C-alpha cells in the first residue's frame, strides 16, 4: 500500500457534495473553513494514493477499460472482468473526531479477515476485509474505516 497524504480542501468537499447531490449550504459557502466533511468523504483519499489501481496511470501500464477494444488488457479469466469483478460488499466508518478543512490525513491499511460463501446469484463469493486508520497531522485518530470487498465467480444476476 502506498503512502497516502490527503489534504482536506474546501473545493474538493464542494465537488464531492455535488456528486452525491447534497445541497447542504455549508459545503458551498465561500468564507470560513469550519465545515465538517460529509460522512463518506474520506473515501476520496483514493485520489491521493499514487498507486490506486482504479485510476489510469499517466504513461503507465495499460488501463483495463475500453478504448478501441472493449478492454485495454487481456482478461485474467474467472468471471471475465479480471480486477473489475471485485465489488464492494460492506463499508463501515467509526468517527473519532470531525474531519475538517485544513487537516492533512495519512492512512494506514491493515488486512483483515477473509472468507468464502456460496451464492445463488453470483456463484462462489470470496470476501476480504481491510481496516484503514486515518490520522491527522497531529497523529490523532480521526476515522477508522472497515471495507469488505467481494470477488464473484460470475456477474451478479439481477
Amino acid at each position, binding site marked *: 500500500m502506498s503512502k497516502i497524504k490527503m489534504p482536506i480542501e474546501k473545493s474538493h468537499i464542494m465537488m464531492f457534495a455535488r*456528486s*452525491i*447531490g447534497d445541497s447542504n449550504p455549508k459545503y458551498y459557502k465561500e468564507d470560513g473553513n469550519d465545515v465538517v466533511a460529509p460522512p463518506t468523504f474520506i*473515501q*476520496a483519499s*483514493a485520489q491521493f494514493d499514487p498507486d*490506486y489501481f482504479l485510476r489510469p496511470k499517466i504513461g503507465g501500464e495499460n488501463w483495463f*477499460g475500453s478504448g478501441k477494444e472493449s478492454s485495454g488488457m487481456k482478461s485474467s479469466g474467472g468471471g471475465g472482468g479480471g480486477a473489475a469483478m471485485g*465489488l464492494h460488499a460492506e463499508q463501515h466508518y467509526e468517527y473519532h473526531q470531525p474531519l475538517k478543512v485544513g487537516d492533512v490525513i495519512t492512512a494506514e491499511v491493515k488486512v483483515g479477515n477473509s472468507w468464502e460463501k456460496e451464492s445463488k446469484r453470483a456463484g462462489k463469493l470470496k470476501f476480504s476485509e481491510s481496516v484503514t486508520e486515518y490520522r491527522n497531522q497531529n497523529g490523532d485518530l480521526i476515522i477508522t474505516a472497515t471495507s469488505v470487498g467481494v470477488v464473484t465467480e460470475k456477474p451478479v444476476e439481477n
Partner: protein
Amino acid sequence: MLKKDQIKVGDTYSEKIVEDLKRTQIVQYAGTSGDYNPLHSDEKFTKEIAGYPGVFAHGMLSMGMTGKMLTNFVGDGTLKKYGVRFTNQVWPGDSLESTATIIGIKEEDGESFAEISIETKNQDDVTVITGSAIALLG
C-alpha cells in the same frame, strides 16, 4: 444537532435521495472520489468484459447519498458510526428513498446517543442498502 427530547424509539425520517439517477452523476462521483472503475462509466467494458447489462453506480455513491439523508436528520459532525451493506446494485434511472429509524437511545459518560437503523430502497421496493449509525444527541 438532533436533540434527545425531539426523538423517541420508533421515530423515522425519510428522504428521496435521488430521482432517475443519471449516468452523468455516476461520472461526477467517479471524478470526485477517484474511483474510476470502468464498471461505473464504461458501457462497452461493462457489457462485453464484465458481463453486466450496463454500467451501475458505485456502492459508495449510494452510501454517500444515504449519508446526506443521515446528516440532514442528525446534523453535521455528530455521527460516531455509520456502516452499510450493499445488498443490490443501483442502476442509471433508479430512484432511491432512504429511511432512518431510531432503534435506541443510550447514555454514555454523560452524553446521549441515538442508535439508528438505515434502509435505502429503489423504485421497485428492492432494498439496495441496509445499515446502521450512531449519532451524538444534543
